[in-house]
């Protein structure tokens, strides 16, 4: 049984903060297919399209028939732990700091053995459920979980290295003026966050939900305007050292493309919030989070970008906003590179049309604020880096993966959506 995690005592101010170290980082280009799927929480293995053999670890050619036609395919998660060991020391600094560490061999139901990290509640010979996640080095790894839920299961030391569970962590939600920001505050509070800092811009303008927001347990309302560098820097000076998860809920969405707009004032507002907003937040909060990537059980662990799925491919009906979100998406990739080595994950949540005023005239299905917030919290608890929320976004992403050029053609047809 896993012992429930507790909020740590206050840090000894004379003690140096533990710096992030990394499990092995190198992967072949081929093997990155596993990492990319793990970032989405998918468990994939290479399967030979010629002889149907499943293979592990990643290879360039099928070990059975030498075909080059090996492709990553989703696999059933079941298996059985057939051998295990507990590592007591290691030459790798990351593991050396974290021993004892369980690893073992799992006989997958799909018919091959794999080496994986082992959850503390898995017993030898027992049935397991495999998960693939990115580890602190950003690479895909396998972990065997008990097949059935166990008490405090998510608090397992090894599992928590792979997840970004809000439990006992301190969260910054950058914009609490909107229903989305308020739903997000409620969701992380319910998930056991120790503190939920919620940014409010322009306190001189009243907003709906102010009272209920302040009443959410552990919420602390802070002055924050992502369009104002001074404001962002001031808040970072105040709480930058204790933000474990940052969720950027600020967005500025307006219908309209480029040619049918008069002037660039609205586009500039979109860029101020959607692109320069995260850029300011990264400059102010990024360095502190990067430094605290291994700072105990409530280390800095995740940066969450909420992005319209039209960040991936422009929808001319919201063309100008789409462009600013594309900029934000591109920036998130830069951030992922800059966070590499820190153990802080970048979670990009791509969502379809949200149920809110500026998308009011769009037809359903839409994503509710509560639905998006819940999905983000679940993704953090699972340690995902890629999340797609809502039927529109899921369909969009499928088409984007199939062929982004075809999707672009679809979106730019008169009836495109």
């Amino acid at each position: 049984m896993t012992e429930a995690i507790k909020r740590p005592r206050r840090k000894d101010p004379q003690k140096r903060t533990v710096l992030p170290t990394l499990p092995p980082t190198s992967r072949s280009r081929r093997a990155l297919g596993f990492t990319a799927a793990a970032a989405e929480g998918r468990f994939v293995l290479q399967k030979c399209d010629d002889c149907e053999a499943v293979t592990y670890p990643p290879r360039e050619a099928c070990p059975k028939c030498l075909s080059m036609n090996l492709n990553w395919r989703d696999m059933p998660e079941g298996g059985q732990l057939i051998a295990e060991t507990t590592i007591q020391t290691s030459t790798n600094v990351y593991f050396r700091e974290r021993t004892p560490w369980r690893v073992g061999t799992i006989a997958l139901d799909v018919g091959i053995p794999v080496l994986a990290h082992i959850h503390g509640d898995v017993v030898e010979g027992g049935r397991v459920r495999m998960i693939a996640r990115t580890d602190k080095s950003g690479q895909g790894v396998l972990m065997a979980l008990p097949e059935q839920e166990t008490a405090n299961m998510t608090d397992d030391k090894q599992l928590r290295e792979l997840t970004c569970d809000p439990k006992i962590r301190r969260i910054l939600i950058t914009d609490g003026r909107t229903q989305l920001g308020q739903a997000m505050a409620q969701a992380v509070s319910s998930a056991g966050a120790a503190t939920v800092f919620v940014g409010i811009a322009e306190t001189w303008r009243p907003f709906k939900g102010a009272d209920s927001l302040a009443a959410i347990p552990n919420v602390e309302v802070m002055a924050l305007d992502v369009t104002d560098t001074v404001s962002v820097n001031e808040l970072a000076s105040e709480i930058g050292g204790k933000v474990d998860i940052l969720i950027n809920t600020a967005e500025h969405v307006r219908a309209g493309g480029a040619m049918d707009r008069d002037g660039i004032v609205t586009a500039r507002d979109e860029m101020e919030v959607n692109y320069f907003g995260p850029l300011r937040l990264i400059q102010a909060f990024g360095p502190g989070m990067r430094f605290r990537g291994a700072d105990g059980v409530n280390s800095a662990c995740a940066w969450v970008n909420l992005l319209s799925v039209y960040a991936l491919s422009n929808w001319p009906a919201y063309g100008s906003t789409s462009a600013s979100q594309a900029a934000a998406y591109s920036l998130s990739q830069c951030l992922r590179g800059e966070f590499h080595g820190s153990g802080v994950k970048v979670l990009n949540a791509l969502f379809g049309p949200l149920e809110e005023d500026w998308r009011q005239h769009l037809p359903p299905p839409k994503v509710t604020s509560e639905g998006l917030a819940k999905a983000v919290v679940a993704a953090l608890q699972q340690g995902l880096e890629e999340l797609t929320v809502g039927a529109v976004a899921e369909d969009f992403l499928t088409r984007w993966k199939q062929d982004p050029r075809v999707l672009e053609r679809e979106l730019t047809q008169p009836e495109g959506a």
Partner: protein
Amino acid sequence: MNADTTTVLPALAEALVAGKVRTIDLTHTLDPDFPVIILPPEFGQCARFRVEEVSRYDERGPAWYWRNFTCNEHTGTHFDAPIHWVSGKDLPNASVDSIPVEGFVRAVCVVDCVKEAAADEDFLLTRDFLVAWEAEHGKIPEGCWVLMRTDWSKRSAADYLNLRDDGAHSPGPDASAITFLIEERNVVGFGTECVGTDAGQGGHLSPPYPAHFLLHGAGRYGLQCLANLDQLPPTGALLICPPLKIKNGSGSPLRVLALVEENSA
């Protein structure tokens, strides 16, 4: 040059140095968090005041500190030119760069509406109120500025704009007051402590936004977001309010000063 003009300014300069004439700052600090007017969100919005550091004695410029700032022509304590409003759009010399500079230095009358604004946040300054004010302080001189003092500048940020779900609530003039000032007193401009020259609910008056519509239609100017009006006498002070010389500018943030004789406040 006649003898008077060569004695007035040296005397003023001497009085300034001697502290017999005080200089009062009527300006709010340009602060990113200072309220701006809020229009329905479908309309273009007034940009907030923002600064971005270019360098601060660092690798971006080792010996100097400077910043870029951005704002609207109507952010913070600011000047409204006639061209700001549709009623003044076709007037000659109606933008901040072309307005005759004489109007930027003028006598100023300060109408105390503090008590009335405290009792009624939607208080409207009327012609009758001005006539009553004149009975006490004398006739408003031609070509002067008239400022409406409400102590609104002392309010907290949220109470300053006083936004509710039916809009902003703050005092201002009605059409009769503005018409009186333009047609019967020929003032050069009208100013307030609130975020605009019009009342918070001024859009529901007739004509809508009477201060903007009537003043600018008649080629007069506006000042708003003024502070420290409580330090001015009802009459006898001199207002200095030159806006930035922005090409075709509809207005501009500015430093507003008043000269006050020491014994007159």
